[in-house]
């Protein structure tokens, strides 16, 4: 029961840090002026066009695709797989489980492997591509190591040493209902949850902020209408 309490406290703290931290960053991003009109051309000339451009950017990583096919391949594979995996994990947070979440379960399992394959590719890139290797810092390696470790420990629960999945879900729901339940103390579960807590804590102070940051790129989110509308922001507004 001690472990349940410790992990519960850590999860509450991590969730608070994640939410408050990311919201704070988003507020900072939103307030930071983009003084210059700098959409990368050819750029859309209407707001709807920008929405479409950003949609492509978020869903298929368009500019990365144009820039580098290998990075796109592994990066996109990782992100899509991660989306499936996260969606699959919704089952721990809802009762009854949505039909679509139940339906996605088998796909989510394969996505776990695809996620690791993508991460492996991205990590290999940091060793094998000279220019990338030169700018790679320790934190880049550690971030990849953390994500790989989360993926491996998760797959280990599924394929190596099962846990009492019902008890695990009860514990997670217990967190949400403020009704603490015993956590099954299997080593991979504790490892997986511990690593996720670390990820949640460093999310608002790391490169992972590209998730909200993506939407604030002036080169992608601006309408190409410098002659029709005078653009003023920050020091250009004075």
């Amino acid at each position, binding site marked *: 029961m001690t472990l349940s309490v410790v992990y519960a406290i850590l999860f509450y703290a991590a969730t608070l840090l994640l939410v408050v931290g990311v919201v704070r960053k988003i507020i900072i991003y939103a307030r930071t002026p983009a003084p210059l009109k700098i959409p990368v051309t050819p750029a859309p000339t209407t707001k709807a066009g920008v929405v479409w451009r950003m949609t492509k950017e978020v869903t298929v990583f368009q500019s990365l695709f144009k820039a580098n096919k290998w990075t796109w391949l592994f990066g996109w594979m990782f992100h899509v797989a991660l989306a499936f995996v996260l969606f699959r994990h919704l089952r721990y947070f809802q*009762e009854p489980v949505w039909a679509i979440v139940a339906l996605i379960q*088998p796909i989510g399992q394969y996505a776990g492997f695809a996620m690791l394959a993508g991460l492996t590719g991205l990590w290999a890139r940091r060793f094998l591509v000279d220019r990338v290797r030169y700018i790679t810092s320790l934190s880049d390696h550690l971030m990849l190591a953390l994500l790989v470790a989360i993926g491996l420990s998760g797959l280990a629960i599924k394929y190596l040493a*099962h846990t009492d999945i019902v008890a695990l*879900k009860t514990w997670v729901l217990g967190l949400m*209902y403020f009704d603490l*339940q015993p956590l099954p103390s*299997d080593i991979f579960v504790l490892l997986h949850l511990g690593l996720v807590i670390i990820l949640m804590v460093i999310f608002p102070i790391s490169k992972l902020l590209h998730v909200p940051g993506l939407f604030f790129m002036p080169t992608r989110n601006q309408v190409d209408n410098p002659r029709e509308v005078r653009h003023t922001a920050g020091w250009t507004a004075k």
Partner: protein
Amino acid sequence: MKAKRNTQRFWLAAFIFVLFSFGVMADVPVPDIPEAVKGEQCVEETGFMRRNHMELLLHQRDDTLRKGIRTQKHSLKNCFTCHVVKGADNQPVTVKDSRHFCRECHDYAAVQVDCFQCHTSVPGGAKTTGTRP
């Protein structure tokens, strides 16, 4: 000065949000795992069964199907000698009923099984779509 006041407001909002979230306090939903109708102990220890019953069943399947070794201890059929839930008509409910022993937890954890596309889900072998129980 304005920035500082905004920061204070932000923390106040965060604090209120946390307070409100305590309002949803309620009993956590848990599966209503049916008692076994007989016996004190499953074929293996309970904690082991909860984690590994699927491995036992799949191992049993491989042994039976591929090697022709048909034992009773870990067979799916043997599960239902104890783990049955009776319906209103005092007959064991099939897997179509959400009160079925397997379904209680499998629905909860959103894990689908394909056992019962062929196998029977009640003791004694009620009629199902497969050719043999």
